[in-house]
């Protein structure tokens, strides 16, 4: 896998994503600056966590207008893998690549802890190496992670098996315990928990590896 990690002004998990993909699963990884008009020769792109553009106005609301997001949208349309983590998920919903919105946590406070996540759909390039119902221990660290969408959208997500992950114990008030969702074509995943923070024993969990490794093997399968 050749992976690109987008760097917006204010991204602060960009290096963590780069480190997890390059060191912990040994894949080629490069940074992509936010004003890049093209993504270059890559198979997958990660929109990392952080506070892009200071989260001014609304999380992700300014980042969606960044030149690189046009390229990301084109990349997604052409079937490229797009993984949005935390602020990256917020940017994906703001730019319409995924439905719904991310509101302030129900408790109105930033929340950093390791939570249990249930794998709901294994029918995606990000989750096929996991088993359905597999519980992953992943960290969350967000103030605006309360997923919201209207009932029709939620019913549609469920009917199309596009809810990738649910919280076992809902930490932020997300509707229907949703922690991560897929695009209709299943090549875009947005999730609030941080898989890159759980990719070696020193981090306290290695449960994030299954997501990154799913991407690698999915790409290997399609290139054959």
């Amino acid at each position: 896998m050749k992976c690109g990690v987008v760097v917006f002004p204010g991204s602060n998990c960009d290096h963590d994503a780069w480190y997890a993909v390059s060191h912990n699963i040994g894949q080629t990884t490069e940074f992509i600056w936010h004003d890049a008009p093209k993504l270059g020769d890559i198979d997958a792109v990660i929109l990392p966590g952080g506070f892009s553009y200071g989260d001014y106005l609304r999380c992700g609301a300014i980042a969606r207008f960044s030149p690189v997001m046009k390229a990301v949208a084109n990349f997604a349309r052409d079937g490229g893998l797009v993984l949005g983590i935390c602020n990256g998920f917020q940017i994906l919903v703001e730019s319409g690549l995924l439905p719904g919105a991310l509101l302030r946590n129900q408790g109105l406070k930033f929340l950093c802890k390791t939570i249990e996540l249930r794998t709901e759909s294994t029918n995606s390039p990000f989750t096929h190496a996991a088993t359905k119902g597999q519980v992953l221990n992943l960290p969350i660290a967000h103030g605006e992670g309360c997923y919201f969408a209207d009932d029709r959208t939620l019913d549609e997500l469920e009917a199309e098996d596009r809810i990738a992950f649910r919280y076992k114990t809902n930490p932020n008030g997300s509707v229907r315990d949703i922690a991560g969702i897929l695009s209709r074509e299943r090549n875009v995943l947005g999730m609030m928990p941080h898989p890159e923070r759980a990719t070696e024993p020193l981090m306290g969990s290695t449960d994030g590896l299954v997501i990154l490794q799913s991407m690698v093997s999915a790409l290997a399968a399609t290139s054959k």
Partner: protein
Amino acid sequence: MSVITPDIIAAHQLTAGEYDKIVSLLGREPTWTELGIFSVMWSEHCSYKSSRLHLKKLPTRSKLVLQGPGENAGIIDIGGGYAIAFKIESHNHPSFIEPFQGAATGVGGILRDIFTMGARPIAVMDALRFGPLTRESENPQTGARNARILEGVVSGIAHYGNCFGVPTVGGECVFDPSYNGNPLVNVFALGVFKKGEVFYGKAEGIGNPVIYVGAKTGRDGIHGASMASAEFTEESKQKRPNVQVGDPFLEKLLLEACLEAMKTGAIVGIQDMGAAGLTSSSCEMGSRAGTGVEIDMQYVPQRETGMTPYEILLSESQERMLLVAEKGREEEVFSVFRKWGLDAVTIGVVTGTGKLCVKDHGQIVAEIPNHALANEAPLYDRPHTTPYRTAPMEAPAFDNLPTPQRALEILISSGDLCSKRWIYEQYDYMVRTNTVEGPGGDAAVVRVKETGTSIAMSLDGNGRYCSLSPREGARLIVAECCRNLSTVGALPVAATNNLNFGNPERPEIMAQLVEAIEGMGEACTFFETPITGGNVSLYNETLGDAIYPSPVIGIVGLMKTSVPAGIAFRNPGRSVILLGGLGTSDRIRFGGTQYAKQIIQSLWGLPPALGMDYEKRVQAAVREIVAGGLAESAHDLSDGGLAVALAESSFGNGIGAEIDLATDLAPEIALFHEGPSRILISTDNAAGIEQIARKHGVEALKIGVTLKEKVVIRNRAASLLNCDLDSLRQLWEGSLEKLLQS
């Protein structure tokens, strides 16, 4: 522009004698602008005029210390070609006036101190002191105000650190009426860089351009340094405009831009604009290099119109840096800052005059020798008598004591000893994926990816002990901090200190400061942890009431990167060993304990007795035990003594312990005394631990075995307590939220 009267001098918090010194240094009366400059540079906050004489008593050197006090931060060699920069600073006064922004800008200020040296910040910790919260306060209104201050401070720290992208990995939080009118917010930051790639705040090279980068200058924070050098009065709330407003996003951009600009090789010197803003950065940079600095106010990027040179010079607007670049290479620097969307403009030039020359549209408004500002500040040997104390020496009657079990429940539900999860879950303590041990342990551990080693760090500062004896208390603080590091397996190597005290013009308060510095110096010498920098915060008084003498120490230790043992018991059926032994105490030495505070609700006598030599050997033993993988868990005994440490070790995995003591001490003393030099260990290799203990000449007392879901303690077969772990843990975990409710 106006005649300088005694009233104006007093309003600038300068004494008549200090004013005379200014006149003699200048050889004339100062201008209005010059008076403003002197007032901030000679403030207690910037000049350390009351403490400097005594700070010289602290040890500052070792073979690992690359940079001691006097720079933006101290620097330590960590091996493998890398070094760390670290320092602690207070933002007490602003946090009382405006808790959210006060704390946020406290974090911002110390982060700039670290990255201005070229180091990338990788960890932050906070030492916090507040008055008691709603349910613990004698006065509901005061308690509610303390709760609001706590909530504001915590969300301010979270706001700044989380957005900037530095993990807040630990700290401590204590409540006492002594901090009702004077909360303490001390922020520690640590950064890492390649050895030899350090940058200093030096304006070298006559003719080199002086460049301003970062945020625009506004009217916020004018005279913040002077505010931090006075007691609070009823009028203090009017000083709210003196508190700065922080923008962590801008600081994140400034960090990346500065580190990138440093790589160009075009930067000669760089300094952040912290307390006293543009004034201190320019005159200190000139003073260090023995040069002059000439700047013109018309070029300074300004947020509002009509600012006077006086306001521009004294503004403490955040997220600004001053740098000196090589002449002719300005464009290399500008292009980096442009990339990050930041202002960077040349505002002046390095000169050979040795003077700070401030112009406004070409007209000189201030001209002062740099060394007069930075190095000629008054130095006071303030009178000091015996340390202020109100506590009696004799213990009160121990009447109607609760059962040990009830006492443990009260202690672990108190604000001081309950779980601080409510606080630390608001901090991103994992960003950068280096956090090996986060909040809740004895010490935080952050790995350095480049070297395969880790940095352990801890903050400690027991004000109750210091109120009983500043000298003994300060020694105990250093010993505890080193013990915390040793318990996670790290060798303590260097320290930074934050000295929070009352009004030094009162001889009995000055005596607290002097004795605490001397005690800290003795212990830091003995434990081989030189002080590489820090901060002094005086005048922590409101309406004449001083805080407890509250020195806070931050010590860093080095270790090989590995998964830590942690404080929690992991398996049932393991031996429980008290390394260092049960220790001893008496009623006099019991007067500063949490039991005295929470149960007897009094303070008396002396702090626990410390044998520094024994302490050092216990620490060496535990380091060897932990590094050798012999401990399944290790937790040092401190506040609340043996019983509280046992409870804390039991909460993590639902594994408690059955303890059998054989002691003649009264139950409350045996279970809750806070004698130092003790570490609680669980192990499946008791013999191995006993052998190491023997080698170091310390006791390794086997006191029991771990078991599921219970904490049981007996003395000579008589039951002292028998707790269900689950209900105990619920008290401990939920307490802080309950205390915050009105």
